[in-house]
Every structure is written in C-alpha cells, then in structure tokens.
C-alpha cells in the first residue's frame, strides 16, 4: 500500500478549520498537512500525545504509524522511510532525544530529510517528566558528534506548533537535513485556538527527485539540475538509481572514502555550507517594539510569552523595551542579533535553562552591548514580575 497525498481526505480527518487544540496535537496536524506518511515513535511525557495523535489519524489518511521499540529505532525507521520516499517524522523528549543523537548525525551525514519534534522537559536524565524546559537547545546543535549544521525551530504558541511543523518539513525537504521542532512541555501541553491554513497558503516544498539519466547521476554532489545549489537531487530507493548510502565519509558517488582527507573535507564542507550559504533565507524572527528600544529581550519558545508581558508592563512604566523572538533558532540569526546589539544598551535573554542560546547571543553581540542571562529552571516558566526585575521595574 503506497501512500497518496490527498489534501481533501487529510482536511476531512482533521475536521474544523478553527479548533481549540493541544500543542502536541498541533504538531500532528502540521505533519499531516505537510504530507507525512510515516511516523515512528516511542512514548515519553510530554511528547506522547504526538504519537497518540499520529496513531489515531495517520492510518486514516493512508499513512503508516509504528510504535518502535525505542527512540533509536524510531529515528532509524523514519530515516529509512525517507529513503523509501516518505515524508517522515518522530516525536520525543529529553531522554529519547539523547538516544537519537547517533542517528541524528547519520541523517545529517546522509542528507536525509526528516522531522524530529522534541517536546523538551527538564534534565539532566529523567528530570521532571511532566514539566517544560529549554535544556536541549544546544543538544540539537551540538549533541551528535562531528561537524554539522542544524536546523531547529522553536514554537511559542499552539498555532506555531502547527505552522512550524509544516515549515520544518519544508526546510528539511529543501536542504535535505533533519529538522528539529524544539517545543517544550509548556507549549506542548497548552491548549489554544488554532486555524488550519488553507491549501493555497501551504506552499509545501518537496525534495527534488533525481531525474537525470541513471548513468550520469551522481548522488552526493551539488544538484545536477539546479544551478548554484549544493543540495543533491534525491534518488528515492526503488526508482532505479541504485544508490549506496553510508554514514561513513563517502565520495560523490557515495562510496566509502574513510582514509581520504580531501573527500572528507569536501563532503562536510558541502553539507554544512549548503545551510550556512543560505543563512539569510533561513531567518525567521519576530520583532516586537524594537524600533525605539534601548533594552531588548532576545528569546524563543515558551520563554517569549512572559517576556512579552514584561515588555508591555515595562513600556507602561516608560521603559523602552523591545523583544526579538527567534522562531528559527538554528542556524542562529547572527546578523540580526549583532545589529540589535549595536542599537540597544542591553540584551536580556530569558531561557528555561542555565544559559544556552545566551552564548551565541553574547558572541554575536561582541561587546557592543551588555548581555544578561535570565535563567529559570525547575519546570516553571518565568513570571513577568521576575523578568521585570532585570529591567529595573518593581
């Protein structure tokens, strides 16, 4: 049974255009709208609702859901499914994300599109299973070994869980890189109003399939059909291209080149610069009241919500506070933060961890303004009043 993307059926299964929905469930909706046809997952709080939603809805649109034996198997299966031609997805939280790290690197090395939803909870280890955190932000970027570029989005609302899952698929298909949706237990377990976007507004991106004659096709090199594009065309298994895919350092043909410095350099340079070269197209931020600001919050995900409230209260006290919300966190929007650092006197970074995205922010600010971390851990969000203290408002 091969999956056929049928927008009418998908919308029928999703139901009403406007709904009051759980954040995790919005990731399910986003996946289905993007055309996911394979989901492999393993239960873990606070991400289980994604698996449960997929188990319920995916077979109804003709896709395949399998509860795998663990998270290593889950990510392995979605990578395999991607090579079989599926848009594929998994969802997990900290402990599972840690287990996925080896194959996350495999997906990067083999340029396999797939989406990993991480509904973050506190850590290290089992931590506070039901409570939200932002402690895996660096893990998404540096958690697997070797040189790589990561793509990660951080939703702040339930609507964004839906929208960013779609966007995550688009970016994953476009760059042939795994994409992490770094939500958290707060947003994942929040219920809010969502609007299902119309078909015409989706603008889905699908990987470019290999089409050139088989004897001319080179699987791991710049696109052979698009100019100035370092993302190779995709030879889906079963289409006759007979591609060998390996996580070993490989040459352009895909064959192991484990003892060749030049091949390794060329490969890793291509799979990283295919993303960094296009960094300007990978910026997604929200700017709030920054025009006249001399203090700015720079934050993302759940932390942006109390920060926005604190900003509004501070403004009512005459403080010129703004907010830069990172929607795509990786690649890090360095230019924007660095420009902001030249404009404001101070950047405050609320995070539900002991300082992660604070570091690239500080690096981008490069001494042009003060950068202060506003950490909160233990599974509670910042209170606006706690953030007001950083602004000198009582």
């Amino acid at each position, binding site marked *: *049974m*091969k*999956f056929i993307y049928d927008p009418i059926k998908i919308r029928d299964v999703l*139901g*009403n*255009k*406007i*709904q*009051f929905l759980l954040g995790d469930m919005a990731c399910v909706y986003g996946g289905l709208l993007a055309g996911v*046809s*394979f989901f*492999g997952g393993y239960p873990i709080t606070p991400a289980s609702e994604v698996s449960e939603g997929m188990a319920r809805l995916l*077979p*109804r649109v*003709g896709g*395949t859901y*399998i509860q*795998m*034996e*663990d998270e*290593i*198997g*889950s990510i*392995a*299966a*979605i*990578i*395999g*499914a*991607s*090579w*079989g*031609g*599926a848009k*594929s997805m998994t969802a997990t939280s900290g402990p599972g994300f840690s287990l996925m790290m*080896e*194959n996350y690197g*495999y997906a990067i090395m083999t340029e396999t599109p797939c989406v990993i939803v991480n509904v973050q909870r506190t850590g290290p280890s089992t931590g506070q299973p039901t409570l939200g955190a932002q402690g895996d932000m660096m893990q998404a970027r540096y958690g697997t070994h070797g040189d790589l570029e990561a793509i990660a989005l951080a939703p702040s609302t339930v609507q964004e869980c839906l929208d960013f899952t779609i966007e995550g698929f688009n970016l994953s298909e476009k760059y042939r890189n795994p994409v992490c949706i770094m939500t958290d237990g707060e947003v994942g377990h929040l219920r809010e*109003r969502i609007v299902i976007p119309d078909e015409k507004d989706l603008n889905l991106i699908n990987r470019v399939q290999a089409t050139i004659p088989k004897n001319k096709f080179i699987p791991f090199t710049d696109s052979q059909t698009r100019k100035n594009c370092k993302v190779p065309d995709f030879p889906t*298994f*079963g*289409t*006759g*291209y*007979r*591609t*060998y*895919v*390996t*996580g*070993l350092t490989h040459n352009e*043909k895909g*064959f*192991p080149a484990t003892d060749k410095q030049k091949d390794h350099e060329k490969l890793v340079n291509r799979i990283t610069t295919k993303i960094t070269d296009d960094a300007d197209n990978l910026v997604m931020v929200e700017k709030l009241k920054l025009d006249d600001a001399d203090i700015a919050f720079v934050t993302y995900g759940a932390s942006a919500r109390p920060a926005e409230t604190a900003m509004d209260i501070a403004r009512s006290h005459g403080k010129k506070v703004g907010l830069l919300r990172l929607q795509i966190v990786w690649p890090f929007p360095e230019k924007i933060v660095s420009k902001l650092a030249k404009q404001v006197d101070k950047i405050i970074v609320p995070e539900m961890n002991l300082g992660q995205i604070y570091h690239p922010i500080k690096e981008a600010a490069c001494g042009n303004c003060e950068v202060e971390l506003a950490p909160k851990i233990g599974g509670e969000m910042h209170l606006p009043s706690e953030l007001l203290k950083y602004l000198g408002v009582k």
Partner: protein
Amino acid sequence: MVEIKTADQLNKKYLREGMWPTIFCNGCGHGTVLEYTLWAIEELGWDMDKTVFTSGIGCSSRLPGYINADGLHTTHGRAIAFATGIKAANPDLNIIVFTGDGDCAGIGGNHFIHAARRNIDMTVIMINNFIYGMTGGQLAPTAPLNSIATTAPYGNIEPPFDICNLAKALGANYVARWTVNHPYQPIKSVKDALAKKGFSLVEFLAPCPTAYGRRNRLGDIKKHWEWYDNNTILIEDYERIINYGSEKEKEEVKNMFPIGVFQDLEKPGFFEQYEKLVDRLMIKKNKKPVKKETVISR
C-alpha cells in the same frame, strides 16, 4: 538475457564495478554468504531496482556496498529498524538486511526481537563468526564458552546467544542456520526466506580467520573452514539424538551447532495486517454521515 551459469557471470550481473577489492581478509566467510544470496536472488528472478540491501556496522555489514542495488549502510545494530521504515514507505520493495553477530545479537538485539515479533516483511541474513571482526576480535555475544577474544583473554565465561532459537520463540515466519561450506541447502534456504512473507532469518556460521581462528588455534584457513563440518549437525539428527539417543551420542552432539530449517510458518506479515487496518478505517469512515462544519469560537 543470458542464463547465469558461473560465479563470474553472477558477479558481473550483480556486483558494483569500482568497489573492488573488497575489505575482506583471505579466508573470510562473508563473500561466500554474499554469493549464496545472489544465487538465490538470481533463481527468484528478483528485480534489482526494487531490492534494497540494508546493514549495520561491521565487516559483514559492508556487503551491500558491493552489490549494484540501493543500499543503506546504517549505524551499528540499527539496520533492522531502518529497514522497517523503508518497507513501510514502499511495501513493494524487497528488503534484505546483512548483519553480523555483534551487530544483530549484540547491540541490535532489541530491534531484531521486535521486528521478528511484529513479523515485519524482511529477510535478515546474520553472519555469525563468533567475534567482533571489524574492530579486531573483541568478545561477541555468540562466542562459544571458553573461546578467546581480545576482551576475553582468559576464555569466555558467558553462555552464548542462540539467535535461531530466539527468532523461533518470537514466532518469526522462517528461521534457518547454515554454514558457508556447502552451497546447495543454504541457497535454497535463502531463496525460501526471501520468498517468505513476514520476518525471515538465515544465520550463517562463517569463519573469521583473522580475528577468531588465529586466536582460537583453529589452524590455517583450510582447517578453519573444516571446523564447521566437524562441529555442526543437521537439526533433524540433533533432535533425534537428544530425544532418543544414547548417553554417549548425546555427549557427542552436546556442543555441536544444529543446522537446517528451524521454523517455517505462513503467518501474515506486518504490512498485510496494517493494510487491512487501513481498509477497515476507510470503510467505516465512508459510512459515517458527513459532518457539518461548526466553528468553535474562543
């Protein structure tokens, strides 16, 4: 199309030029397992555009690289989980997993167990050389008692894993074990495994002279290969002796490896069951009256 009669013709048809020489040592059994598998594919007349070879990490897991077909060389122990996804995305593909004893019975044991239990449609060919060959001879979970490995320098005290008995207990549709010494039964067995719906396992006992034979004093390559003839027994004979044999006979076969077909069933494979589930949902759905769109306001 030319009829394939010789190993040379077989290699020309199925192997990738440009990947030679292989990484395998002299006297390694892996190449022979590949040859048997290709003969089975040839006899079945499988379309190599629709056949995907998956593997983990290890010398044995390098086999897909030599075959002119789609291949997914994955991470250590995880090939079966990757293969599950490939098959789910496109059930029309034939899936073969090449794996080692360390890859499959060691680090990947859990994926093996659950794929066999789910009866996922794939054939796993596990090459058991009693050792971690690629990394230089560390202890494998299949190593016989008292055998020597770099990490068991005073002899192995752990009871070894019998992967066939495990697969049988899990209800896998097809389970067989052979050695690399004789082509005919194994080729037929691989053919039966490939043609089978659901999960099938063929285990090959194969020599690794470099990392196992040498250290365990099994002699030169020829002697090492002969070891498999002297230490295996057909499962039918084994079971007869265990059930009805004399004490002396039992003692003689006690440490031998039974070979042959351990299980041959016709249970539906996972994807057949999944398709039924989807059909059931679609029918139910179509019967339901169309719901009017209601707008839930905030």
